[in-house]
C-alpha cells in the first residue's frame, strides 16, 4: 500500500516538475551529439594525418605514402559528408529542442558559432579542392590544400568548446529582473575556461582518430598483410595518437583544477563523494544507492591529491548541495571513471610500445599487441563519449550552470517527441550501416587492386566510361 502511494506521489511529482518532452529531447540530443562527435573528431584530426602522409609521399617520392594519402582522402570524403549532415542536425536541434536556451541566450552564445561556421565553410571549400584536385593540380600546391583543413579544425573545435565552456561557467551578460542585459559576446568567445576545454577535446580528437585509423592497419597485419603499406598506415596515425594519449592525462588534470568551486556538484559526482571527507579517498567504481556508496574500491588520500592537489583538502560532498541541484550521480561517476580508466590504459600502452621500440623490440610482431591496437580505436571512442556524458550529465539539472535549468530550456512538446527519437534512431542506424558497408567495400576493392573506384551507375559495359 505504502509503496503504491509513494509511487503515485513520485510520478505526480515527476510529471509536475518535468515537461513530458524533456526526457526524449535529452535522449535525442545525446544520440545526435554522440554520433556527430565521432565524425567531428575525424574532421578535426584526420586532415593533419593526411597532410603528413601526402607530404611524405611527395618529399620522398614514396608511392606507398602517396597511395595511403589518396585512399584516406577518399575515406574522408565519406566521413566528412555524414559529418556535415549530422552537424546540421545539431544546428536545427539547438532551436527545435531548446528554444528556451536559444530564444533567451542566442545573442549571448551565438558569436562563437558564427566563427565556427566560418571555419566550417573554409574546411568544406578546401575539402572540395583537395578531394577533386588529385591529378588535376601540381602536387606541391595540391598538398597545401589539406593544411587549411587542419587549421580550421582547430578554430572550429575551439569555438564549439567555447560555447560549452560558457554553459559550464557562464559569463558575458547580466541578469536584471530576469532580463538578459549587458551582453558581451567577445567575453563568451574568449571565456577563460574555453581554452582548456578545447585542448582536452582537441587532444581527444587526435586520440580517437589516430587509434581508429591505426587500428584498421593493425587488423590487416593480424590477417597477415605485413607490407610497407600496412606498417606506414599504422605508424603515422599511431604517432599522432601516441603524442595525444601521453598529453591527455595532464590536460585533463589541469582542466579539473578549481572544479570544486566552479561546479561542486559535478566534482562530487565524479568522485562519488556523498559526504565531505578529509582526506578524501579515490573511489574506483561503486554506485550510490539510497545515499550510500556501495561496491567501490577506496584508495585513501588519492581523491584529495588528484582532485584537490592537496594531501588533505576534502572533495566537497553531495550532502552539502541541495537535493534539487544534484546531477544523476551514478551515470556521471561511472562515465567519468570509464574515461579516466581507458585514457590511462591507452597512455600506458603507447609508452610501453615506444619504450620497447627503443630497446629494439617491435611489438607489431606480437599478435596480442596488434589485437590491443585494433581495440584501441573503439576504446578511444568509448572514452570520448564517456567524457562527454560525464561533463554534460554532471552539469544537470542546469543547461547553463546556475543560470538556466534544462527543464526551462526545453520546447513545449508532448510525449510524441519520443517518435522523433525513434525515427532518428532508425535513420542514424541506417547511416551507420551505409557508411560501414561502403567503407568496407572500398577497402575490399583496393585490396583487389582497383585504385580509382569508378562510379557503378551502369551495367558493366559503360561502367568504365568515366574512368
Amino acid at each position, binding site marked *: 500500500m505504502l509503496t503504491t502511494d509513494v509511487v503515485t506521489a513520485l510520478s505526480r511529482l515527476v510529471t509536475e516538475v518535468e515537461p513530458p518532452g524533456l526526457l526524449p529531447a535529452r535522449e535525442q540530443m545525446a544520440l545526435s551529439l554522440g554520433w556527430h562527435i565521432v565524425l567531428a573528431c575525424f574532421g578535426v584530426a584526420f586532415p593533419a594525418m593526411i597532410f603528413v602522409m601526402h607530404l611524405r609521399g611527395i618529399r620522398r617520392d614514396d608511392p606507398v605514402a602517396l597511395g595511403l594519402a589518396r585512399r584516406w582522402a*577518399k575515406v574522408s570524403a*565519406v566521413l*566528412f*559528408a*555524414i559529418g*556535415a*549532415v549530422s*552537424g*546540421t*542536425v545539431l*544546428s*536545427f536541434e*539547438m*532551436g527545435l529542442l531548446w*528554444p528556451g536556451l*536559444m*530564444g*533567451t541566450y*542566442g*545573442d*549571448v552564445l*551565438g*558569436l562563437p*558559432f*558564427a*566563427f565556427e561556421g*566560418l571555419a566550417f*565553410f*573554409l574546411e*568544406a*571549400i578546401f*575539402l*572540395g579542392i583537395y*578531394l*577533386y584536385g*588529385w591529378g*588535376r*593540380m601540381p602536387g606541391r600546391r595540391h598538398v597545401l590544400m589539406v593544411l587549411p583543413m587542419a587549421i580550421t579544425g582547430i578554430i572550429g573545435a575551439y569555438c564549439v568548446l567555447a560555447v560549452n565552456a560558457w554553459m559550464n561557467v557562464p559569463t558575458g551578460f547580466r541578469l536584471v529582473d530576469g532580463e538578459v542585459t549587458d551582453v*558581451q*559576446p*567577445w567575453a563568451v568567445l574568449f571565456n577563460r575556461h574555453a581554452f582548456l576545454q578545447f585542448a582536452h577535446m582537441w587532444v581527444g580528437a587526435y586520440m580517437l582518430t589516430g587509434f581508429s585509423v591505426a587500428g584498421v592497419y593493425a587488423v590487416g597485419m593480424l590477417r597477415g598483410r605485413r607490407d610497407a603499406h600496412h606498417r606506414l598506415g599504422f605508424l603515422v596515425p599511431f604517432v599522432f595518437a601516441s603524442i595525444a594519449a601521453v598529453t591527455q592525462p595532464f590536460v585533463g588534470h589541469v582542466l579539473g583544477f578549481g572544479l570544486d568551486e566552479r561546479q561542486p556538484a559535478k566534482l562530487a559526482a565524479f568522485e562519488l563523494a556523498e559526504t565531505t571527507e578529509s582526506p578524501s579517498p579515490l573511489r574506483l567504481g561503486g554506485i550510490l544507492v539510497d545515499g550510500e556508496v556501495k561496491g567501490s574500491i577506496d584508495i585513501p588520500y588519492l581523491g584529495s591529491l588528484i582532485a584537490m592537489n592537496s594531501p588533505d583538502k576534502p572533495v566537497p560532498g553531495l550532502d552539502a548541495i541541495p537535493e534539487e541541484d544534484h546531477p544523476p550521480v551514478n551515470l556521471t561517476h561511472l562515465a567519468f571513471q570509464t574515461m579516466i580508466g581507458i585514457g590511462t590504459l591507452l597512455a600506458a600502452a603507447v609508452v610501453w610500445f615506444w619504450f620497447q621500440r627503443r630497446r629494439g623490440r617491435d611489438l607489431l610482431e606480437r599478435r596480442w599487441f596488434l589485437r590491443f591496437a585494433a581495440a584501441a580505436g573503439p576504446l578511444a571512442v568509448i572514452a570520448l563519449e564517456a567524457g562527454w556524458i560525464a561533463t554534460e550529465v554532471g552539469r544537470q539539472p542546469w543547461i547553463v550552470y546556475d543560470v538556466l535549468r534544462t527543464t526551462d530550456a526545453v*520546447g*513545449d512538446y508532448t510525449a510524441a517527441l519520443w517518435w*522523433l527519437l525513434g525515427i532518428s534512431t532508425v*535513420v542514424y542506424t541506417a*547511416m551507420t550501416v551505409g557508411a560501414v558497408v*561502403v567503407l568496407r*567495400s572500398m577497402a*575490399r*576493392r583496393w585490396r583487389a587492386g582497383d585504385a*580509382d573506384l*569508378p*562510379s*557503378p*551507375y*551502369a*551495367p558493366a559495359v559503360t561502367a568504365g*566510361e*568515366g*574512368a
Partner: protein
Amino acid sequence: MSLELAVAAALFVGVIAYAVLGGADFGSGFFDLTAGSSRRGAELRTLVDHSIGPVWEANHVWLIYVLVIWWTGFPESFAAAMSTLVLPLLLALLGIVLRGASFAFRKYAATLAQARLFGIVFATSSIITPFFLGTVAGGIASGRVPLDGAGDHWSSWLNPTSLFGGVIAVGTCAFLAGTFLVADARRSGQDRLADELRVRALGVGAVTGAIVFAALVPIDHDAPTLAAGLEGRAAPLVVLAGLAGLATMALLWTRRYAVARITAVLAVAAVVSGWGVGQYPWLLVDEVSIVDAAGATATLQGLLVAVGLAVVVVVPPLAYLFRLTQSEAWSRPDH
C-alpha cells in the same frame, strides 16, 4: 543603414546564396531521378556526381550560416520559427541528412544495386528538402509564425502560400540545376547529353515560371502583407525575375549555355529577393519587425565583424574552388 538592418541584410545574402548555390545542387536530384534506367541514365548520373561533388558541402554551409546568424542576431524570432514550424523543418532536415549521406555513399558504392538504392534516396531527398524549406518560407511570409512560438503546427505550413513556396523552391532548384548541368555537359564534350538536358531544362523553366507568376494570385488573398510588398516595393524585382527567366529560356533555346547560367541565377536571386524585399520591414510577417527582433547591440556588431571576416577569408577560396571546377583540367572525368 541601421545595425539591425545590416545584419538582416547579411542574413538574407546567405538565404539568396543558399537558394542559388545549394538550390542548384538540390535541383540536380530532379534530373538524377528522371534520368531513366541505369543504362540510359549512367552518363547523366555521372555528370551530376562530377558537377556537384566538389562544391556541395561548401554550398551546404550557407544553410548553417543562415541558421547561425539568425539565432545569434534575432534569437527570439529564431526560437519562435523553430517551435511553430517544427514539422516541415524536421522533414527538411531528414532530407538534408539522407541526401548528403546517400550522395557520398553512392559515389563509392561497390555494386550497381547499391548505387541504385543510394541514388534513389539521394534524388528523392533532393526534391523533398527544398519543398519543405519553401513551406517554411511561406509560413513566415504569410504571417503564421507568432513571436511566442505557439503557432499551429499544421496550418502554419499547410496553406496556399507555403505550398506554392514549396513548389516554387523545387522548381527553381531544378531550373538552376538544368542550366548548370547543360553547361557542364557541353564543357566536357557530351553534346548529345547537353541536347537532352536542354530540352528538359526548357520544360522545367516554362513550368516553374508559370507557377511563380500564378502564385501571385493566391498569395494576394493568403498573405496580404507580402502581396502588398510584391506589388509595391518589390515590383521591380518581380519584373526582373520575369525578364531574366525569359532571357534564360531564350539563351537555352539558342544554345548559349554559359550565359544562360548567369541569367538563371539572376532570375532565381530576383525571386528570392522579391520575397525578402516584399516582406520588409518584417522579420516574422505581421508579428515582429527586423529592428524589434534584433538581439544585443554588441552581438550584432560582433556578427558584422564575423561577416566581414568571411568576405575576406571565405570568398577568395570559394571563388578559387568555383574557378577550378570550371577549368579544363577539372572538366575531365574522374580518376
